[in-house]
């Protein structure tokens, strides 16, 4: 048996339909608009200044920055000391080799 649409209910159904229709049209109409990227970026710069550069993806803030700098200094010092030792070892070996050659020559 078909559902009976009573006259006093018909007005309510029509009203709901109309309100849904208006709501649907508002959803289609009122959609977000993206502001211009240049405007957004320029305003940000004007308000807070240029963004700080991130070093290797780490924000340069407080203790993180200190740790990064300390690590860099220690690494650099280690490289310099290590390099100096290598050079010193190579030079030392050459001198030792030269000394042995001189002694042999003297023996002959």
């Amino acid at each position, binding site marked *: 048996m078909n559902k009976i649409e009573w006259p006093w209910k018909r007005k309510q159904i029509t*009203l709901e*339909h*109309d*309100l*849904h*229709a*208006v*709501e*649907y*049209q*508002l*959803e*289609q*109409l*009122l*959609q*977000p*608009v*993206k*502001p*211009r990227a240049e*405007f*957004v970026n320029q*305003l*940000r710069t*004007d*308000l*807070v*200044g240029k*963004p*700080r550069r991130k070093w290797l993806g780490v*924000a340069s*803030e407080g203790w993180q920055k200190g740790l990064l700098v300390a690590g860099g200094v220690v690494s650099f010092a280690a490289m310099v000391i290590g390099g100096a030792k290598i050079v010193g070892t190579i030079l030392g070996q050459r001198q030792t080799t030269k000394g042995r050659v001189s002694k042999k020559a003297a023996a002959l």
Partner: protein
Amino acid sequence: MDQELSDTDALARAAQGDKEAFGILYDRYVGRIYNYIYYRTGNQHDAEDLTSRVFTRAIRHIPKYEDRGLPFSAWLYRIAHNLVANWHRDNSRRQIVELDESYRLPSGQEQPEARVVRSEQEAVLMELVSKLPEDRQQLLILKFVDHLSNAEIGEVMGKTEGAIKSLYHRTLLSLRDEVKDLDPNHPLLQANGQGQ
């Protein structure tokens, strides 16, 4: 600076003068504030101008910001609302908000004739919306453009959730009556999202 900083923490730091913290808040809300102002003014130029003023005012007054239990966004919307109200007052000689040509660009995939018809329907509805009282316009924009819930809208507008629901219902009724006054068989009242 951690982008996952909460509004409360970012606000506390910004109030101490941390500009990067304010930058985080700016990134979060500039789109929403711009949209609100754009739909209230109807053109890009004024929307950009007023958006700049909102955030300039915000950064200037943030050291005096008092936490009253409302979200930070509610404060920004309040500033935006006041600036837009002043803008309307200064432009009160205009009966209708003039709309950018690009205000509502029709879909590129429609037939030209359908596109023109849809644009006309949208223009009619937009004009009706622009003639609504300020609080109803604000409600529609926060609901449909910024996708805020009724509870969030209530916080922004200083009303209860129930009051917002009631205001929304009355707004829809008002728009529907305006459209019916224009034409009882207006296409706006035929569209229901099905097969559209």
